[in-house]
C-alpha cells in the first residue's frame, strides 16, 4: 500500500479520466444538496488527499454493512476510493489473518496516531466482555484503545450507532452502541440496516472534504438523514388522499397505495431511502411493496412491531378496557351502594315539616 501518492495521482495512474472523476464529485455534491460551486472544491480536496489510514473494526455485526458497501453498483470510482483510502484493517476484506492482521492494525495505529479514521460496525457488549472478542481482546477494550488515537469515528450501521439487533429485547449480551462507550471523540452515526452504500461513501467524502458534517440530535449527518421517508415518499399522495393498502395482496397494494396501515414507519424514520434509493437508485422497500421498518432509528426492532401501524397502541388495549370496565363495575357498585345508603339515611332522618316549622326563625 503506497501511501505517498495522492488520490488524484492514483486515479490518473488507473486511467480514470478527469471527466469521470468530476462526474463523481458532481453526483456526491448533488446527493448532499450542495450548490454546483462546491463541485470544484470537492474535486480539489479529494485530489490532494493523501490516502488516509482507515481502521475498520467489526464487532457484534452480521457483516451486512460491509456487504452493502462492497456490493455497491455505483461507479467503480467508489471501489477505487476505497482502494485509495488506506484500509489498514478490515476483517472481511483484508488478506492477512490471525496475529498478522492484528499486527497490521497496531502498526497503522502507531504510524498514524491521531490521524487515522476509525470506522466501526456492529454493537459492543458493554459489561460482560467475554461475549465478543477478537484475538482474545474484548470488543470494548479494542474500541477504546483504537478510539483513543483516532481523528474521528464513523459508526456505520444501526448496530454500531444504536445497538441494532443485539440490543433488541432481551439484549442477552448487554450490547451498546459506540457513542455509549466513547465519550471524548467526535462520532458520526450512519445508521441503517444496512445503510445505503452511497450514503456511507457520501459521508466519508463529506468528512474528508469539509470535516465533521452537521449532525442531528442522534449524531446523524443532516445531509442524508434530515428528511423523513414520509416527507419524500412517492406514495405520499395516496396517504394524503386516504388510500391505503389493507393487506399485502389486495387491490390497494397492487395499485401501489400507501402502506401506513401495514405498519410503515416512514413518518418517524429519517433516511435517504426515498430519494437516493438502493441498488444505484433502483428501488427501496416501500416501492417494492413492503412497509418501511424504520431501520435507521434507535430500537427499531422493539418499536411496537413492524406490521403495527404507528398510531396503534403497542399493548392490548381491548383487554385493558375490559378489565377496566370490570374494575369500574365493582368499584362503582360499591360506591353506588354507599351513596344509596347515604341517601337512605337522609330519608330516615327526615323530620316531618309542619307549618309551625316554617314560621319560626331558624
Amino acid at each position, binding site marked *: 500500500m503506497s501511501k505517498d501518492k495522492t488520490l488524484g495521482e492514483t486515479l490518473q495512474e488507473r486511467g480514470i479520466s478527469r471527466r469521470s472523476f468530476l462526474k463523481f464529485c458532481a453526483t456526491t455534491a448533488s446527493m448532499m444538496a450542495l450548490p454546483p460551486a462546491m463541485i470544484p472544491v470537492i474535486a480539489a480536496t479529494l485530489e490532494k488527499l493523501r490516502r488516509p489510514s482507515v481502521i475498520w473494526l467489526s464487532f457484534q455485526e452480521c457483516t451486512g454493512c460491509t456487504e452493502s458497501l462492497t456490493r455497491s453498483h455505483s461507479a467503480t470510482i467508489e471501489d477505487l476510493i476505497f482502494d485509495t483510502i488506506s484500509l489498514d484493517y478490515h476483517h472481511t476484506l483484508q488478506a492477512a489473518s490471525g496475529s498478522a492482521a492484528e499486527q497490521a492494525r497496531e502498526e497503522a495505529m502507531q504510524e498514524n496516531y491521531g490521524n487515522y479514521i476509525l470506522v466501526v460496525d456492529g454493537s459492543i457488549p458493554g459489561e460482560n466482555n467475554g461475549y465478543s472478542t477478537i484475538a482474545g481482546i474484548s470488543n470494548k477494550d479494542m474500541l477504546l484503545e483504537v478510539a483513543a488515537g483516532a481523528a474521528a469515528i464513523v459508526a456505520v450501521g444501526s448496530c454500531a450507532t444504536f445497538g441494532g439487533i443485539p440490543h433488541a429485547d432481551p439484549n442477552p449480551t448487554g450490547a451498546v452502541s459506540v457513542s455509549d462507550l466513547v465519550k471524548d471523540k467526535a462520532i458520526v452515526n450512519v445508521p441503517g440496516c444496512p445503510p445505503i452504500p452511497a450514503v456511507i461513501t457520501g459521508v466519508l467524502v463529506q468528512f474528508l472534504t469539509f470535516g465533521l458534517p452537521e449532525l442531528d440530535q442522534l449524531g446523524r449527518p443532516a445531509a442524508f438523514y434530515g428528511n423523513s421517508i414520509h416527507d419524500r415518499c412517492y406514495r405520499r399522495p395516496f396517504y394524503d388522499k386516504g388510500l391505503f393498502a389493507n393487506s399485502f395482496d389486495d387491490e390497494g397494494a397492487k395499485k401501489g397505495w400507501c402502506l401506513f396501515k401495514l405498519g410503515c414507519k416512514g413518518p418517524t424514520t429519517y433516511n435517504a431511502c426515498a430519494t437516493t434509493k438502493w441498488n444505484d437508485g433502483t428501488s427501496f422497500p416501500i416501492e417494492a411493496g413492503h412497509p418501511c421498518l424504520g431501520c435507521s432509528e434507535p430500537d427499531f426492532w422493539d418499536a411496537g412491531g413492524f406490521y403495527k401501524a404507528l398510531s396503534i397502541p403497542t399493548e392490548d388495549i381491548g383487554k385493558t378496557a375490559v378489565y377496566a370496565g370490570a374494575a369500574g363495575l365493582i368499584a362503582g357498585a360499591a360506591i353506588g351502594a354507599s351513596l344509596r345508603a*347515604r*341517601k337512605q339515611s*337522609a330519608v330516615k332522618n327526615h323530620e316531618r315539616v309542619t307549618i309551625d316549622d*316554617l314560621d319560626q326563625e331558624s
Partner: protein
Amino acid sequence: MSGPSFQRGYNALKEEIDAPTAAFFSSCVHCGMCAEACLFFTETRDPKYTPIHKLEPLRKVWKQEYTFWGKLGKALGLSRPLTDQDLADWETLAYDSCTLCGRCSMVCPVGNDITYMIRKMREGMAAAGHAPKSLIGATRRAVTIGSPMGVKLPALQAQIRHTEKEFDIKVPVDVEGAEYLCTLSSMEIMNFPEYIGSIARIFSLAKVSWTLSSKAFEATNSGIQIGVSDIAAELVQRIVDAAEELKVKAVISPECGHAYMAIRWDGPNLVGKPFNFRVLHILELLDELRAQGRLKMKDKEARKVTYHDPCQISRRGGIIDQPRKLINMVADNFVEMPEAGKMNWCCGAGGGVSSNERADDLRLKTFARKKAQLDAINVDAIVSACSNCRIHLEEGLEEYHMELPLLSLTETIAEHLAEE
C-alpha cells in the same frame, strides 16, 4: 317541634338528590343557554337569574355528598361546605325569580330538567327557614283555614247561592256517586266566581253528573309552591279523602295551573299511592265533551283572540291541543302568538311569585316578555285557562297601559253556549 334549621335543610337536600339530578349536574357545561330561556333573565339581563345558577346550593350538596372527588375535596378542606348563609343568599333566586315555568328544561342542550331541581331545592330552603314570608303566610292559611287566600266555606256557599239564583241552576254539593268532583281555586271563588256558573251551565247542557265538596273545595296547593312535600301531601289528601268519600270517578281541577300539577302529577306521589279515581283538567273534560258532540254553541266569539298557555297546564302538564280545539269551536278569529304552544312564555306569576310581595317589582318587569309577544299580533282579547295568569296579566297590562280583556276559556264557552 324542632323548628327550621340548617341541618334539616341540608338533610332535605340530601334526600332530594336522585339519579336524574346527578345526571343533570354531571352534564351541565355552563353554556348559558338556559338564561336566554328564562324571562327573569331576558327582561333584566342580570346573569344571576341564570336558571342553573339558581341551583348552586343543591349542586354543592350533590358534589360534596354524592361524588367521589367532591367528598374527597370536602374532607381535605379543599372545597367550602354549604352554609346557612348560602341558603339565605339564594332565597330570592330560588323563589322570587322562578315561576317553575319549565322553559329552561326545554332548551338545555344536554337535557337538564332545571325546573325539576328547583322544586327539589325548595324543600331544603323551606326546611332551613329560608322560604319567603308571604308564601309561608299563604301556606299557613291553606293548612289551617283551607285556602291560601283565607276563603272559608261560608264565602263559597254565598257564591253558590248567587250563581244558582243568577242562572236558575242547581250547583250540586256533596253528592255521593256523582261522576266528577270539581275543585276550585280561591282566586276563582273570590275574583272570578263566574267560573262556577259557567261549569254549572255547561254540565247541565251536556248532562254531566258532577258535584262540589264542602270539605275539599280548594284545588290550589301552597305546599308545592313553597316546596314542602309534607304540607303538600296533607293538602292533597283532603281532596283524595273527599273523592273517595263521594265515590267519584274523576276529580276535575279548575282553571289554575299549579292546582292541576299538584293533584294530577304530584298528587299520587305525595300521598304515596296511586289514586283510584282519574284526574282531569276542566279543559280536558270540556274537550272530551266537544269531541262527543255534547257541547252545542249558539254563536261564536267575534273578537280576534289569542291563547296564553299556562305553563303548568301546557308545557308542564301536557294539555296543549285541547284548549286550541276548544277555542276554534268557540271563536272564528283565533291567532297564535309567537312561540305559542309548549314553548310559550310564562306570565311571570307562577311558582309562588305572585304570592310573594317582595317579588312584585321583578314580576312586573318580566311582563315585558308577554307584552312583546302580544305586540307581535294585534288581538282584541286574550284567552287563558288559569286565574293566576289572568290576574297577573291584567295587572301587567294595566302597568304597561294596554287595553286587552283577559278571558277565561271555560267562561267564554259558557257565554256562547246554546240555551237549553
